């Protein structure tokens, strides 16, 4: 694997996380429990899709094969996606969506803060731009997790169930492989494992405020960021997201 091949993989991981999660969140548009939440979710989705254009745009540039960010988003199938499994998990109820969002946002914030100091100025620029938006995302998802966790007995029960369901997808965000080693050596990106302590500290604090119990087991599903094995949900999601290009190949407007 050359350095540019590793760089391309890394950029796809960043861009596919924001693309897949952004699409998931956009599925709430018009369906959220109250208008304010509907607007907040749509704005979050919009930020994530905007960040996707920057990450996948740079990925396409590094690849140098004439593909665009749109090509990468709309013309690849499930096995070429490099998002973590957490991002593709279905929305479930509103509480489950917000738990997924918080678990991701907290990681995303730490990753972008580190990337803002990247040796590659394009990566640093995208990260510096994105981190401002993500600081808002995490503020809101954290508040919601605390509010619903420490809410009624029904909201508490649902948030604990969401945490139990999604926590096994947390570990994958902090895995390291040859791509990460190459990025770290080049000073482009941190080793994800190095972010875990700060993440754990934030999560412990948040869940304590939310009166929720973190599962004991560190068991982690994986296979998304390497593309080895996505969950069945990604393929179904892509049939929606990529419907237009599949039905009308090459359509533009």
């Amino acid at each position: 694997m050359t350095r540019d091949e590793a760089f391309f993989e890394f950029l796809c991981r960043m861009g596919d996380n924001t693309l897949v999660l952004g699409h998931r969140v956009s599925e709430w548009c018009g369906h959220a429990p109250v208008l304010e939440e509907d607007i907040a979710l749509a704005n979050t989705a919009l930020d994530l899709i905007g960040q996707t254009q920057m990450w996948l745009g740079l990925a396409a540039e590094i690849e140098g094969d004439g593909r665009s960010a749109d090509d990468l988003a709309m013309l690849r199938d499930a096995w070429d996606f490099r998002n973590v499994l957490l991002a593709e998990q279905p929305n479930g109820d509103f509480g489950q969506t917000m738990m997924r969002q918080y678990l991701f946002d907290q990681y995303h914030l730490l990753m972008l803060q580190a990337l803002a100091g990247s040796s590659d100025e394009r990566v640093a620029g995208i990260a510096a731009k994105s981190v401002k938006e993500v600081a808002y995302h995490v503020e809101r998802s954290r508040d919601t997790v605390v509010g619903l966790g420490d809410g009624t007995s029904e909201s508490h029960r649902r948030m604990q169930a969401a945490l139990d369901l999604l926590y096994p997808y947390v570990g994958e965000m902090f895995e390291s492989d040859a791509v990460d080693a190459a990025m770290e050596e080049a000073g482009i990106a941190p080793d994800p494992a190095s972010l875990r302590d700060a993440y754990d500290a934030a999560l412990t604090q948040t869940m304590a405020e939310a009166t929720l119990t973190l599962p004991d087991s560190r068991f982690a599903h994986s296979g998304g960021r390497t593309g080895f094995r996505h969950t069945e949900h990604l393929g179904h999601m892509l049939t929606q997201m990529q419907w237009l290009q599949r039905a009308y190949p090459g359509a533009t407007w």
Partner: protein
Amino acid sequence: MKPTEAQIWDWLDQVPDPEIPVISVVDLGIVRDVAWQDDTLEVAVTPTYSGCPATSVISMDIETALRDRGVEQIRIRTQIAPPWTTDWLSDKGRAKLEAYGIAPPSPAGGPEKCPHCGSADVVRVSQFGSTPCKAHWRCNACLEPFDYFKCI
């Protein structure tokens, strides 16, 4: 004869932001640079939020405004670093926002006062509002809802 850069800035200051038309794209602080490269005018534009749908409309509006005034060769360059900050809003823009009913950004993280009645008794409804750049607040004195231009 090529119009001067000062003249270009003046023209751009007449291009309204498509979502908040009381302020111009220059007031918003998204026009970062204007420079002639031989016979081509290069305008550097920075997006407010990465996913803001107004960004492409703004580029189109800038191009149209310059073409209408006889500038033929225009290149719009998107510049993401350094990232846009609400510190770049002009004082004129801040005053216009407030007169329009949108509380201008404040480093305290929330509006100083209600843009309708001036009361400081205000409460946040949601971190997000009608566009990516705004949050939703309400005044406890006059009970009116209002937008707050988020400080980033």
